[in-house]
C-alpha cells in the first residue's frame, strides 16, 4: 500500500445561501483547497466528488461540480452519489493503483432548497417504507429511544452532547449552530422528535467541502506536516430498521477495527453524528474513551452539509494533525437511515 495523506482541507457552510447556486458555492472552496495544497491544479491527477440529485432537485447535480473544477484539458474524474468521504475512498483507491499521485475530492449540497427530512425518506425501502413517509428525524428518533432504553442513558446525556457541540462550534468559522447553551438550557426546550429536541438534530446547511490528498513524496513536498491515512474502511448493514440492532453500530465497529483505530492512542475524533445519540453509539462502537477529544469542530451538530459533512470530518481531523495540535485521530462518515453505512479513517502525523 502506498502512503497517502490529506494535504489540504477547505469548507464552507451557512444555514441558507440565498445568493449563490451550487457552482458558485463550490468554486471558492475548491480554490482554497487547491491553493492550500500548493499543488498546481493541472498536476492534480484525479478528481472525485459526492453529491445527491435529490437534494439538488433534479438530475445530474454533479455536472455543476465539473463546471466548477475547470475540467480542461479533459481530466480523470468520477462521482459517487454518496457522501464525499466515499469519493475520498475512491480517490485513495485510484492512488493505490499507482496511476495517479494526487486527487481533489469534494462534496456539496444546499440542504435549504427542499425539505431534507423528507428527501431522505427516499433512501428507504420503496415498497414498505416510503409509502408511510417516515422522515429522517423520525427514524433517528426510533433509534434514539432504542439506544437510550438499552444503554440506560437518558435525555440529559443527549443534551450534554448537543451542548458540547454548540460550544465547540464557537471556534469553527463555518458552524451554522454555535453557542453557550448548557445541557440544562437545552433540556428546557420542547421535544420535537421524541425523545429528540431540535438541538439534538443537525442544523440544515448549505455549503461545500474540498480535500486534496497526495501520495508519498508528493505529499511531503507540498505539505509541511501531512496527515497520513493509516487506515480507511467502510461497511454497510442490512437496510431495514427492524432487522438491525439499533442500539449499536456493528458496521462502525468492524470498519474501525479494520482501519486500526485500536492500534494506537487517539487524540481526536470527528464523528459524523447527525443526531446526539449517534455520537454516543459511535463512541461505543469505536471504543473511544473519555480522554479523546470528540468533535472539536462541533461536528455535524454544528454544521451538516449533507454529502460533504462526512468528508469534512476527515478534513477536520487532518487539519488538526497538520497544525500539530493532534498526532493521531479518527474520522467517521455515515450514510443511510440510522447509521446504516459507515466509514472510518485513521489519520496520523509522521
Amino acid at each position, binding site marked *: 500500500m502506498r502512503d497517502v495523506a490529506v494535504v489540504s482541507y477547505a469548507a464552507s457552510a451557512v444555514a441558507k*445561501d*440565498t*445568493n*449563490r*447556486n*451550487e*457552482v*458558485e458555492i463550490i*468554486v471558492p472552496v*475548491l*480554490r482554497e483547497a487547491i491553493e492550500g495544497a500548493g499543488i498546481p*491544479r493541472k498536476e492534480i491527477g484525479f478528481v472525485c466528488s459526492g453529491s445527491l440529485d*435529490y437534494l439538488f*432537485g*433534479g438530475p445530474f447535480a454533479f455536472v*455543476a461540480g*465539473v*463546471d*466548477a*473544477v*475547470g*475540467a*480542461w484539458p479533459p481530466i480523470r474524474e468520477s462521482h459517487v452519489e454518496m457522501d464525499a468521504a466515499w469519493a475520498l475512498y475512491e480517490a485513495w483507491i485510484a492512488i493505490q493503483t499507482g496511476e495517479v499521485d494526487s486527487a481533489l475530492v469534494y462534496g456539496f449540497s*444546499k440542504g*435549504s*432548497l*427542499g*425539505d431534507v427530512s*423528507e*428527501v431522505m425518506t*427516499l433512501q428507504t425501502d*420503496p*415498497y*414498505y*417504507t*416510503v*409509502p*408511510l*413517509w*417516515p*422522515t429522517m428525524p*423520525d*427514524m433517528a*428518533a*426510533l*433509534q*434514539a*429511544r*432504542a439506544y437510550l*432504553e438499552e444503554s440506560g442513558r437518558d435525555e440529559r446525556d443527549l443534551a450534554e452532547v448537543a451542548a458540547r457541540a454548540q460550544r465547540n462550534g464557537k471556534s469553527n468559522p463555518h458552524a451554522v449552530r454555535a453557542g453557550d447553551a448548557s445541557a440544562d438550557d437545552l433540556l428546557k426546550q420542547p421535544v*420535537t422528535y*421524541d425523545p*429528540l429536541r431540535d438541538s439534538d438534530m443537525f442544523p440544515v446547511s448549505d455549503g461545500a467541502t474540498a480535500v486534496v490528498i497526495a501520495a508519498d513524496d508528493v505529499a511531503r513536498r507540498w505539505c509541511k506536516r501531512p496527515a497520513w491515512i493509516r487506515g480507511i474502511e467502510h461497511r454497510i448493514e*442490512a*437496510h*431495514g*430498521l*427492524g*432487522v438491525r440492532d*439499533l442500539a449499536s453500530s456493528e458496521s462502525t465497529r468492524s470498519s474501525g477495527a479494520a482501519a486500526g483505530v485500536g492500534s494506537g492512542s487517539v487524540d481526536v475524533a470527528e464523528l459524523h453524528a447527525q443526531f446526539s445519540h449517534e455520537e454516543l453509539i459511535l463512541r461505543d462502537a469505536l471504543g473511544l474513551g473519555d480522554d479523546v477529544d470528540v468533535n472539536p469542530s462541533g461536528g455535524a451538530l454544528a454544521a451538516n452539509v449533507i454529502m460533504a459533512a462526512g468528508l469534512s470530518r476527515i478534513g477536520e481531523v487532518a487539519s488538526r494533525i497538520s497544525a500539530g495540535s493532534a498526532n493521531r485521530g479518527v474520522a467517521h462518515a455515515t450514510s443511510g437511515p440510522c447509521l446504516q453505512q459507515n466509514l472510518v479513517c485513521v489519520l496520523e502525523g509522521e
Partner: protein
Amino acid sequence: MTETFVSHHVLEYPGGYTRSVGPVVGRFLTSLRDGKIEGVKISDGRVLVPPTEYDPVTSDPVGDFVEVGPLGTVETWTWVEKPRVGKQLLDKPFAFALIRPDGADTAWLHVVDAGSKDMMSTGMRVAPRWSAERVGSVRDIAAWVPLSDGEEAQTAPPRTNVSDEEEGPVTGMISPIRLEYDVTAGEALTRFLVGMSQGKIAGGRAPSSDEVYAASRGTDPKTGDPTSIEVDVADRGTVTTYCVVNIPGLSDLAPPVPYVSAQIVLDGANNMFFGLIRGLEVDEMRMGLRVKAVWAEELKPDYRSILHWEPSGEPDAEYDTYKEYL
C-alpha cells in the same frame, strides 16, 4: 449585491412511480389486501416481516411464508406531533413505531394511532386497524392501535372495493412522490435574467479567459474561474447547426411541428445558445444562417423573453467563420 432570483420547484413524476413488486413483495401485499400479515422463513429459521426476496444478512433466497400477528409488540417508537398531511398515513398526531408481530423475529416500521403520546411505551401491545378499502399496500393497515390486556384483535372488515372482475395477486403499486424546493439562480444567472427583463443578453467573462459566456452559470467551465466581468452580448448571431423537430408535444413552449431547434453562437459570445428558428420554411433552414432575437412584448427575467429567432436578412456566414463552434 442584488438579491438573486429564487423559484419554487416541484419534483414529481406525474401520476406516481409505477412499481412492479415481484413475487415476494407481491405475495405480502396480496395478503394485506386479504386482511392478513405474512412473513417468510429465512435460513436461520427466523421469520422475517415484512418479507423480502432475500435473507437480509446472507442474501440467500427466502423460504416459506408463514402467517404472523395480527397482534404485535412495540419495540421502539417516536411521536409525530405535526403529521405531514398528504404523505403520512394519519392527519392527526401519531407514533411511528417498530412493531414486531407475534410469531415474527423482526420488526416492521409502521404507525400507531394512540391518541396521545402518553399512551405510548416500549413493549406495548398493538393490533392492526384494517382499512375497509384495501388495494395491496402497507397502507391497507390504516394504523396500529393500542390493545388493553386480554383484548383481542379485530379481524379485517370485508373489503368495500371488491370489483366483479376476478382479482389476481398484487403485481404492482403506484408510488406518488412529491418534493418541493426553492431553487436559487445564483449571481451570474441572475445577471443574465435581469438582462432578459431589459431586452438584452448579459454575458460574463473570467479575468483569466478570452471567452465570453452568454447565460453563464458562474464560471468559465474551462478554468473554473468566476465569470465576474460583465459583458453584453448581441441579440443576433449565427446558426451553427440545428435539427428539424417533427415530434409534437415535447414541451409547452414548442410551436406546431415541424419546427427548427438550433445552436446559435451570438456575436460577442463564444458558447452555444439554444433557440427556436421561425420566419422561414423548414426546408429553407441551413447552417450559417444569420438570425436575430424576437423579443416578447412584455419582458420578464426569464429565457422566454426571447420568443424565438428569425433570419436577420444578413448574408449567411461562411462555414470557416463558425466551424470551430461545431
